[in-house]
């Protein structure tokens, strides 16, 4: 199995696993962890699109032969920052929900109908 297929497989597994966790778990914290796993999978996928086995950083000096594509890495950096912001937002809403309901279980939060 070559490296590329392995990375793509791992990325897709992480994305699907994350969505499954977010969709099936009843605890809000676990749902947010699921979202984070999904985001990691997406970031891995982005990096993989620009990855070349044995490539180096794209710095143009005399010695380079193969370089990886720098754009996906820049994108992932942005995506990570956005992911952190979403997670922070989610956790701060969850804290408020816990204060109101004394529970993180979405079944116990009365008005929540999924």
């Amino acid at each position, binding site marked *: 199995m070559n490296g590329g297929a392995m990375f793509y497989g791992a990325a897709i597994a992480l994305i699907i696993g994350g969505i499954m966790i977010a969709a099936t778990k009843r605890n809000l914290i676990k749902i947010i962890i699921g*979202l984070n796993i999904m985001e990691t999978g997406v970031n891995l996928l982005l990096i993989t*699109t620009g990855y070349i086995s044995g490539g180096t950083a794209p710095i143009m000096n005399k010695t380079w032969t193969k370089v990886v*594509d720098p754009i996906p890495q820049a994108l992932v950096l942005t995506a990570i920052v956005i992911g952190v912001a979403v997670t922070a937002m989610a956790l701060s809403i969850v804290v408020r929900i816990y204060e109101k309901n004394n529970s993180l279980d979405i079944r116990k939060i009365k008005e*929540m109908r999924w």
Partner: protein
Amino acid sequence: MVNPILIIAISLFGAFFIALISPFVKRTGKIIAFLTIGFDLYIGASLALKSLRTPVIAYTAGFKPPFSINLVVEPFSAVFLLIVLTIGFLISLYYLAHPGEEPEDKFFTLLILNLMGASGIIMTGDLFNLFVFFEITAISSYALVSIRKQKASLEGGIKYLIISSIGSSLFLVAIALLYGQTGTLNIADIAAKLPFINKSVALVAFLLILVAFFVESEIFPFNGWAPDAYQGAGEGISALLAGVISKAGLYALIRLTFTLLDLPLRSKLLIVFGIMTFLIAELSALKQKRVKRMLAYSSIGQMGLVVAIFGIGTIPALKAAIFQGVNHAVSKVALFLLVGMVIKNLGIYKLDDYKGLGRKNPLLGLLFSLAILNLLGFPLFAGFWSKLSILLSTGKQGLYLLLSLILTGAIVEVYYYVRFMKILYERNEEASHLEIHLLEAMPIIAMAAFIIIIGVNPGLITPLFEKASEAIFMKFSYINLVIGG
């Protein structure tokens, strides 16, 4: 020359200026927000006017596309930019006389950022840039929805957050796939390279984009968040959801499925999901006991209708869809703001509590009826012309099943709105009197004036929609515009 970047720069400046001075000078947020959004609207309107003659493109970093991020304002984006900024401006005008959500200064910072994100979505010509603006809009709307520390708003906020962040991750997957195939992120460049993209990759990316923006434009079955978010949010924010956030999502959906990935499958999927949303949402609205939730379902239904009409894809249909989108934005924002005034004064939420309010408060009743009749497409209102053009363009394509489903949904809609109007005008001696602040009512009066003027003379605005629908219909003109020159 007016530069589209100004909208983004001024908004960022205004938003963080509020945060900067709020420790020293309290309660200036609403004034700064009003001025900032007013300035945005001025820039946006002059851009829109200019783009009708020659489309405006702004590059960054001194490179031409596809090597730089670019902002494009052509007729189709100009119409959406005008909707978003006008509605945003009217909402900020409303908040001048209406108490904002607490903490007020932070609320207005978020409001400005939200509008900046929405106008960014509409103007950008770069796929990843679109994702970033999309996230700015989304994150600020999660905060705006849940800023009221009540159970319902927190619930609406977290649901919206979970569903929408799954959607945006799927969008990012689509971006990764397309970048892997084409090596570019420029929308026009990818669109030009579409014939060389692997067919199955293109299909997967198309479906992912469809799901991601179905979430944002409230299309069934990805709209589970919408009723709760509308119900939980403050009334001004419900108006923002109906008039700005969902419209930006709709723009992205249409731009990406018409220009970026122009697959033949699009038409069927948009029509089927759109009309399903319309029927299910209208039927759900029928049994609601709370006014805001009823309006929320009606809003979802209207978005479904607009998406279905966009799906037909002929120029008259596109024109009808844009017109209906504008009418929905105007009517629904007016309704939510009116409900906000009622809740501020009387604190009532149930449909039955509105008994006799319209009879006791003639101005309130008049504005309510105007907005409702416009939404229903009553003759001599702007909504009549858009509903008529929807029916004509559907009939012309021979889509009689779709036509009959639209009529069924519209009848349900008429039924519950007329029931609401009947409640408003019922005889009730105990109905309370409302203090209506004129400044607060100004945005609604402006929208009512728009409804009547366009209703009497639709020719004032239809040339604009004509140009917009031609612009989105011919994707090669967009590609030539951005990378051809």
